[in-house]
């Protein structure tokens, strides 16, 4: 049974595309046949993060308008055989994503794919709505920062009222909180909302905490999803999140400030 996952946040710049790329890659690495779709028509970026921008011929809107077949538009990842990317169109209007068109594409993908990851655009406009409407699960990407938390709360409201599952009276979309750009040191100094604070406010299960890391920028510069980098805390944290998503019980790491002092080391040893 295919699961459709929407990666959403309301606010822009919090790491939706990075997360979509990481989740799609992570699930594919676990052996699941996965497609990741860019819903940000007019501002496409997923192809850059996935490193396939030089191979784009057709896009999501071409498929919806039946100007190309789904197979023509899907780009197979260079590194992982069972990972496919469906890029957004840069030159069309957002409204090109019709409800019927999106549904047709998702249904066709569902015939052969295990997971479909929908990378939502920022905001709560048409594109974001289309990305979430058919979802079975939602990864709500949030920064430890008040405007991001508020926007996530808004998105959770929409997930709980405007999705197909709700309208058809089925079990609601399964929601997961993913905190990104987390800095334990700043939390310790009282300069940043803590995991606990945010969880208390949004009250949905936590699936991962990704520490702020230079390696995320490096990965995007190179067009290699961060999850592939096993030397990066952010990459490892995404890997843990995938494990939790698939039902494993994994302890959270990188959420406490480093105990670098001698005392810290001594006490940790006990």
């Amino acid at each position, binding site marked *: 049974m295919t699961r459709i996952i929407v990666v959403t946040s309301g606010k822009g710049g919090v790491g939706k595309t990075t997360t979509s790329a990481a989740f799609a890659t992570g699930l594919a690495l676990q052996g699941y046949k996965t497609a990741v779709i860019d819903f940000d028509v007019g501002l496409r970026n997923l192809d850059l993060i996935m490193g396939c921008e030089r191979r784009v011929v057709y896009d999501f809107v071409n498929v919806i308008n039946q100007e190309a077949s789904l197979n023509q538009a899907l780009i197979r990842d260079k590194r992982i055989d069972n990972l496919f990317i469906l890029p957004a169109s840069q030159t069309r209007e957002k409204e090109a994503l019709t409800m019927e068109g999106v549904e047709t594409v998702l249904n066709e993908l569902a015939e052969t794919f295990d997971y479909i990851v929908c990378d939502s655009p920022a905001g709560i406009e048409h594109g974001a709505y289309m990305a979430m409407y058919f979802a079975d699960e939602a990864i709500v990407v949030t920064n430890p*920062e008040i405007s991001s938390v508020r926007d996530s709360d*808004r998105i959770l409201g929409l997930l709980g009222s405007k999705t197909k599952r709700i309208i058809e009276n089925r079990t609601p979309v399964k929601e997961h909180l993913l905190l990104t750009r987390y800095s334990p040191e700043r939390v310790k100094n*009282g*300069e940043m*909302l*803590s995991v606990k604070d945010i969880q208390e*406010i949004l009250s949905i299960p936590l699936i991962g905490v990704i520490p702020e890391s230079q390696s995320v920028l490096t990965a995007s510069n190179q067009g290699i999803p961060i999850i592939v980098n096993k030397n990066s805390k952010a990459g490892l944290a995404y890997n843990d999140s995938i494990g939790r998503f698939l039902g494993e019980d994994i302890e959270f790491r990188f959420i406490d400030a480093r105990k670098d002092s001698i005392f810290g080391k001594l006490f940790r040893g006990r």
Partner: protein
Amino acid sequence: MGLFDYFHASRKSSDVAKERLSILIARDHFHRNQPSFLSALQNELLEVIKKYVDIDQDDVTVSLDREEDCEILELNIALPEKGRYK
């Protein structure tokens, strides 16, 4: 350290953020839950008008504004140009 700082130094910015957020979100929820009948009203109006005139979803807008002790229900129906009347 000024007097102002003296009183505020003990308050961490993350605590301030959490407090502001809690209030904000409670208020957002209040507003979000308010006019749920509006979209239903809009759809019903649309259905009725559609019987006589060829209009689209976007041609009917309904909004509810609150000003102190009075509420203003605003209906805006844009009729099409001549020739599309049924």
